[in-house]
Structures are given as C-alpha cells and as structure tokens.
C-alpha cells in the first residue's frame, strides 16, 4: 500500500525518550526518536542491539510508557494513558508476535487462538485465523507437538485473530531457520496485504527490509534514516 500524502498517520512519535532506572544507574534507551506510521503500512525497523528498537516497539504496543516526548495513536495522546487504558488499547488495537512464541503450553493451537478471540470485540473465526497461516490441520496439537515455525505461525494467528489494526513483531524469525523463517514472513505479508493490517517488524535481519514499504534504521536511541522501498519483494524472493 502506498503512502498517500493526505492520509493521517496511525502513529505519530515525537521526540520520544525512554530512560530505564536500574537502581542508581540510569540507562537511556530512546533519546528523542520521531516517526510517523501510516495505516496499512508495512514497516521494518532495523538496528543493532541496544539501538532502542525494542523499546520503541514496546511503547507503540502499549507495553511501556515513554519518559519524555509524545506518542499519538489516531489523535489520542498515548503518553497520558493509564495502565488500564494501555490494557484496553492492547486488547482492541494491537497484535503482538515475539521471537519466542509465548504460547500457552497447555492449550492446543486452536485454543491458543481462541485466547485472543474470546476477549476481542470483533474477532475472526479462530479456525479462519489458523487457515491464514495454513495450520488448520494442526489445530488440536499442543505447542510442544509443533515445530518452531509452526508455533510462530500459531502465535501470528493468535495475534491476527482479534483483527488488530496494528501487528507488532519483535524478531519473529529470530529463532527460526531460513526456510521456516520465510514461511512465517509469507504469512505476515499476506495478512498485511489481504487484511490491511499495519505491520511493524523489528529485526537485525537487513534482508527482511526488502519486503517493507519503508525501512527505519535506528542507532543509539535515534531514528537514523528512513528509506522508502519503491518495489517491495515477496518473502520467497528474499536472500537471507
């Protein structure tokens, strides 16, 4: 989806700062990062460890609050959100996918997906969500009976099933080999395309950037540059 100039951004980050206080030491993770994210956009955030990309994602996802600057989500000022508001925000707008899939070990694939449809306002049919990631046949398997790639796809189905506006992925392929990683990225790309979900992926992996509409590079808690990708590739075209 192209970035139309008249469209309102879904996210606006303005000079966002985050300082972690660990005992007597203060560790700045974000030192004034600014970024606008458009609806339906596929954004990849690249950066080395410690560049602040995970912190950024957590703030956008409502897992964490900034210590300075402003974050806007569709005209709402998220900076002032209370813990309860952040919870509501996560529930209604955000889908998360982590490097380690964080599935409930004692729930089957389908039940894991149901976990998010149960609490959502306008959920997808959980089976439909599994179908999106091509796992409907494995719906009654427990996480430990699935491969890593399959587990990650269940996690994606779980995140997607509540039809969030934004899907946030923190190193979704970080624990996977090339071919499984591609299958996972394919699933993510398809969702971005077919459902129109805004997709933000953070990764070390430069080649994933080739799939995105825009690539954001982070360094030392700042956004270093933003690169617009005129012709995004599909997942199977990627070179790892």
């Amino acid at each position, binding site marked *: 989806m192209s970035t139309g100039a008249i469209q309102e951004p879904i996210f606006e980050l303005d000079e966002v700062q985050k300082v972690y206080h660990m005992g007597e030491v203060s560790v700045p993770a974000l030192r004034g990062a600014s970024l606008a994210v458009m609806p339906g956009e596929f954004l990849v955030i690249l950066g080395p460890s410690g560049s602040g990309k995970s912190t950024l994602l957590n703030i956008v996802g409502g897992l964490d609050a900034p210590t300075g600057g402003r974050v806007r989500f569709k005209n709402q000022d998220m900076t002032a959100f209370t813990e309860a508001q952040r*919870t509501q925000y*996560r529930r209604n707008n955000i889908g998360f996918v982590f490097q380690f899939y964080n599935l409930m*070990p004692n729930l089957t694939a389908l039940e894991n997906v149901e976990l998010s449809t149960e609490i959502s306002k306008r959920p997808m049919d959980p089976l439909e969500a599994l179908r999106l990631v091509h796992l409907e046949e494995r719906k009654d398997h*427990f996480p430990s009976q699935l491969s890593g790639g399959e587990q990650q796809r269940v996690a994606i189905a779980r995140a997607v099933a509540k039809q969030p506006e934004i899907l946030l992925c923190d190193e979704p392929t970080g624990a996977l080999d090339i071919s499984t990683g591609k299958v996972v990225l394919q699933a993510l790309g398809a969702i971005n395309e077919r459902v129109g979900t805004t997709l933000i992926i953070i990764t070390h992996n430069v080649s994933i950037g080739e799939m995105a509409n825009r690539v954001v590079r982070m360094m030392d808690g700042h956004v270093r540059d933003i690169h617009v990708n005129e012709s995004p590739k599909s997942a199977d075209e990627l070179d790892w």
Partner: protein
Amino acid sequence: MGVLHRKLYRTMLKSWGQSLAVVAVVLCGIASYICVYSAYLNLMLTRDTYYSDYRLADFEILVERAPETALFKVEEIDGVRQARGRIVQDVNVDVEGVDEPRIGRMISMPSTHEPVLNDIVLLAGRYFDGSAQDEVIMSERFAEENHLTVGDRIQVSVDNKKYSLRIVGLGLSPEYVYMIRNVQSLFPSPERFGIIWVPQDFAETALDMRAACNSILGSVDNPDQLDAILDQADKLLDTYGVFARTKKSEQISNRFLSDEIRGLGVSARIIPTLFLGIAALILLILLNRMVRTERTQIGLMKAYGYSNLTVALHYIEYALLLSVLGCIGGFFLGQWMSFQMIQLYVDMYQFPSLQARIYPYVLTRSMGSALVFGVLGAVAAAIQAANIHPAESMRPESPKIAHKVWLEHWPFAWRQLSFTWKMILRNISRNKFRAGLNVFGVSISTALLIMGFFSQDAMDFGLKFQFEEVQREDVKLSFPTEHDIETLYDVARFDHIRRAEPLLEYPFEVRSAWRTKDIVVIGMPREAELQKIMNFKKEMVDVGATGLVMSDHLADELQVGVGSTVTLKPLMGRVTKEKEVTVRRVSQQFLGTSAFMNIDALSRVLDEPFAMNAALLRIDEGSGAAINRQFKDVAGISAVSFSKDAYNGLVESLGKSMAIMNTILLIFAGVISFSIIYNVTTVALSERQRELASLRVLGLSTTEVGRILYHENTSLGVVGIVCGIPLGMGICRILVEAYSNDLYRLPYHIERRTFVISILLTLFFVLLANFAVRRKIQRLDLVEVLKERE
C-alpha cells in the same frame, strides 16, 4: 562452589516469601518438639529426683491395725530393704471463719526428723521439736489457700474429739505431688484437701493406737519382685485386716503424674512429626518448581562440567539452609515455651522445685530431625535435577499428553462457560499434579485448623458433659463408712433439700484373665436422676438390675466386651471375697475410669442387703451456705462437696493450662496453614509467569489475569477444604486415641463452630495468598518475561 553458593543465597532472597514459609513451618515443628520434649524430660527428672531424694515407698499396705511387731515381719521378707509403720487418718480441719469442712489427711511422722520413707520437704518453719504434742506441719498449698501460716492454730476433730494444733512448718511430700484425696476426686482442690503431718505420739494417743499403725510403707531391692513380696506380706498381715495394697506404680499421685508425663511423650512424637512432615512437603513443592524453572540453568551448569552430584547437592543445600534457619528460631522459641509450660505444672503439681534444664541432645536431635525432613523434601527435586540431560534441557520440556476437559465433550455446556472458566478448567485438567498439590495443601491447612480448635472443643464439651449431663447433683455428701438406707431418709429430713439419692462408691480390683485394673465401682439406683450414665452422643445408658456398665477405655484395657465376665475384688474393708459379674454395657466416660452398677447389686457384691457411702442432693437455690452450716458438725460426714466448686476448680486448673496449650497449637496451626497455602499458590504463579505475561500482552488487565488465578485457586481451595474436613476429623480421632488416660478421655467432639471457623480461616488464607499473588502479577515485567527463552 563459591558461585553456586551465591546463586543459592540470591534465590533464597528472591523467593523470600516462600523461603520464609518453610522456615516458619520448621520453626513451629522444632519449637513444639523442644517445648514438649524438654517439658517431658524436665518433669520426669523432677519426679525421679524428688522420689529418690525423699524416698517414695515402693509399696503401701493399709491395714485396720497392726502392732509394731508386724513391721519386723515385713522387714524380714526377702527383698524388702526398709519398712515403716505410720498412722494415716482423714480428719476434719476447722479453719476460723470458714463454714465448709476442710479435710486434712493426718499422717504420723517420727517426733524427730529422720530419713524415713515418704519423707517431707520442709519449705518453711521447722520440724517437730520432739517433745511438744500440739505441733503440726501442714502441706504448703493447703495452708496458703486457707490463709494459714507458721504460728497459726487449727482445730482438728479426731474421733469426735477436738484438738488445737499449732502450725510449726509447711511442707510437701513426694507422695502427694498430685494432691487428691482419692481416685474419685480426680482433680486437686487445694483449699479443701491437704495433708497435716503430726508427731507419732499425738496420732497414737488421739486414735488410741499405742504402738500400732494402719499403714505400712516399704522399699524393695528389686522392683520386679514387688508382686511376690506383696503376696507374702499379704499373708503375714492377714490377721490385721488388710484393706489395700498399693504398688508405687498404682499410687494415686504417681499414677496421675506419670500419665501426664506419658501424654507429653506422645505429644512430643505426634505434633512435631506432623509439622516437620508438612515442612518437607512444602520444600518438595518449592524445590520441584525451582528445578523446573531452572531447567536451562541446570543444563548449562552440566554443560560446563558440573557433576550431577554437585547440582543435586545444590538443591539439598537450599533445603538444609532453610531447615537450619527454622531450627535456630525453633530452639529459642521452644526453650522459652518449655519454661512457660513448666510454670503451668507448678499450678497442677506440688513439687519442691521444678527442674528447667536445657538438654543439648534434645537440641541436636531436633536439629537432626529437621535436617532429615529437609533432605526428604529436597531429595525428589535433587534427583530430578541430576537427571536433567544438558542437551535436552535447552529445549522445552517434552509434551505432556493432554486430553479435552470432560466438559468439552458436551459442547452445549462448554459453550455456556465464560472464557475465564474455560481457561481455569483447562489449566486444572491439564496440570492435575499442580492442581492436586494445591488441593492437598489446602486440605492439610483446614485439617490442621480443625485439629487446633478441636482440643479446646473436646475439653469444653467434656467438662459440660460431666457437670451438666452426668453429675447433676448440687451437693455430694460423703460418709467414711457404709450406711443403710435409713441414712438417706435422715439426710433428706434436713432443710433445703429437694431430692436425695444414695450412692455407693467402692474401690475394686477388676480382673479379666491376667489383666487387672484398680477402679472405683459406683453403685446407683436405676431411677437415679442426679447421676446419669451417658455416652458422648448424650444417649442415656440404663444401669440395669445387675451387671457392670464400664467405660470403653476400661473395656479396652481389660480386653472385655458386653457379655464378658470379670472378677471384682474389693480393695477396702473387711470383705475380701471376690465376686464374678457380667459386663452389661460399655459406655463412654470423660472423667476418670470407673464402672457403674445398680446400687442393690453392688451391695450384694459386698455381702450387704443395702449399702451407701455417699448421698447426692439437689438443694434449694442459694442455700449453699445454710447446707454447709447444717452438715458441718454432723458426725459421720466426711465431706460436703459442691458440684459448682468442683466445676470451677477444674476450669481453673485444667482449663487454664489446656487453654494455653491449645492457643499455642492453634497459632502454630494457623502459621502452618497459611504457609502451605501461600506456597502452593505462589509456586503455581512462578511456574506460569510467561503464560500470565502473554495474557497481559494480549490485552487482559491485571484484574482479569488475577481473576483467572483467583478463581482457579479459590475453586481448588474449596475442593481442598471439602477434602480437609474428613482429614481433620481423622487427625482428631488419632489424638483422641493418643491422649486418653485414666484421668480423662478426650471425647471425640467437634463443635459446628470449629468447622465454620476453620473453613472461613482457610478461605481467608486463600484470599490473603491471592492478594500476594495479585501484587506479583502487578509487578510482572511483561517485556522481560516475554523476551526470555522458554
């Protein structure tokens, strides 16, 4: 190993709540062990040194009247080391300003102090001066309760003659550590009954027993020969009318004291074992969880080359460390409690001084058992840790075979459930072990609380049962000898008496095969209303026309049942003929160990047409003082006792000491209950941190996540409580068996209130633990938890 130690130390600090819970339970276990076991040893030591220092006799033979020469015959029996003749007689003691008669047991002592058998300990004043005839040494508590002291005078009626005697000293005797008049009285009433020691000459003169005695004391070289010696003595003394022969082991005061000591010994075994067992259980839960969550770390340590043994020992060390901490706390608390407990015995028993020693071997033994239980709790986890394969540990645990929740097979019902409940049911059914531990923990908590309240319930019930249902009289008149029915009519003619019933209380040796037991048989009319036989369900038991109704405790000891024949051998008076009677019924009895019989049938056992030696009275309300005045100077009445006084006395002595013990037990039960619940709840939480964080990320609020855990814990808690009730009842049954003795038998009675309070308290603990869990959920660092590898 240095690093491992640091890891251990930090783990302990991190899970301080759970570690503290283990320490608290170990502490309770050790404290109760040290308290009770030290009290046991101290009391035993006190008893034994007292007995040997003041030469408690090995036997006593009561005769009607034996000349001094008879004494030499006894002394000549092979194996008898020493013998002493004395005069013993219960007399009325008049204390100025007191209406009620006081009973003094007059015991003759040599005019000058000699190291005799059953010697006295002088606590104040002096011994007889050797010439004066009007001197008396009084038992300390008796004097104290009647506000008498050295130099005061008392009036004593002996054989209808009054003597004025001057108190020259206050003393104690090993023969009357537990100061009761006879088996029937069961509990001391120090103001009404005590000992007055008089010079031999005075007793001989007053009772007209020149150069004679009615009590022969003896000591033997070898206690095993006691029976044979007594048989010989019996024959030698036959012509002097032997009333009773008592071995040291049957001597009343000693019997009660030894029963108490035995009870302490039982307590020292049961309760600490229970507590330490629970500590082991909590450790088991805690360490298992720890090994599971540290699986990867363990694998890593092994990959680096730490041996299985080192890893296993690491977890055992953790358990040992907590045990040691609990022990140290337990040492101090237990020792302090032990000294407090000894103080309680000062009220019940009369010792010249109570030993309050610290026993190093009790400390080492308790330390030893705490460590053993600690290792027991840790061993499973240690083995588990040792079995972890380094390569495998890096991957998630192998799949558990899981099934649908049974309810899922009924889709209609399943769909009715809310999301929360679906989660809970799945959690429970797929983690049966964890759920099981939770249920088990809660049920032990409930059971412990029930046990804690039970002893007080049983005591209260027993006392009420005894004084409201069994002994319904207001006043009991005792006569020193047997009378015929005319006496009852005479008594009934006095003022203020609304009802009078005869009673015959007679000591017998009951025998079945080789089993014997000295008891009191109580003869009562069939239509008696002032005394009832009743079981603990408050069902009346008919005394019948013939045959014996005995307590289940006695039936057990004699190994007899309904229909068995037992032999009764009178232990008093001239009648020595044995009679056989059938056991009619077996009932229950709270206080004492006695048997009941129709008064007519019992009279026939004694070869009398009718005999009574006590009367039970119901009197006009508020006429107590008048009754006392009326009977005070009536010859032939040895005691007027008011049931209300006896009840109050009991509540005062037994009730007070029991209440303190029960409170301590209850506090311990509470601490342990909470520790278990806190641990099973929080352990479950730490196992599931990742799950909960995932839920939070999905958009569930802390309250919603909390609700899942909370509902799960509460419903498991309810199941636990339901299971805990029968468990608690079972423990109480064991206690009933363990604590029964000749003095009293704990009735198996649990108030409804106890169940309600125990259930509510357990629920409260579950809620409190949930509250702690809630705080942990709130503090859960979502980002950190989810970043970690599984």
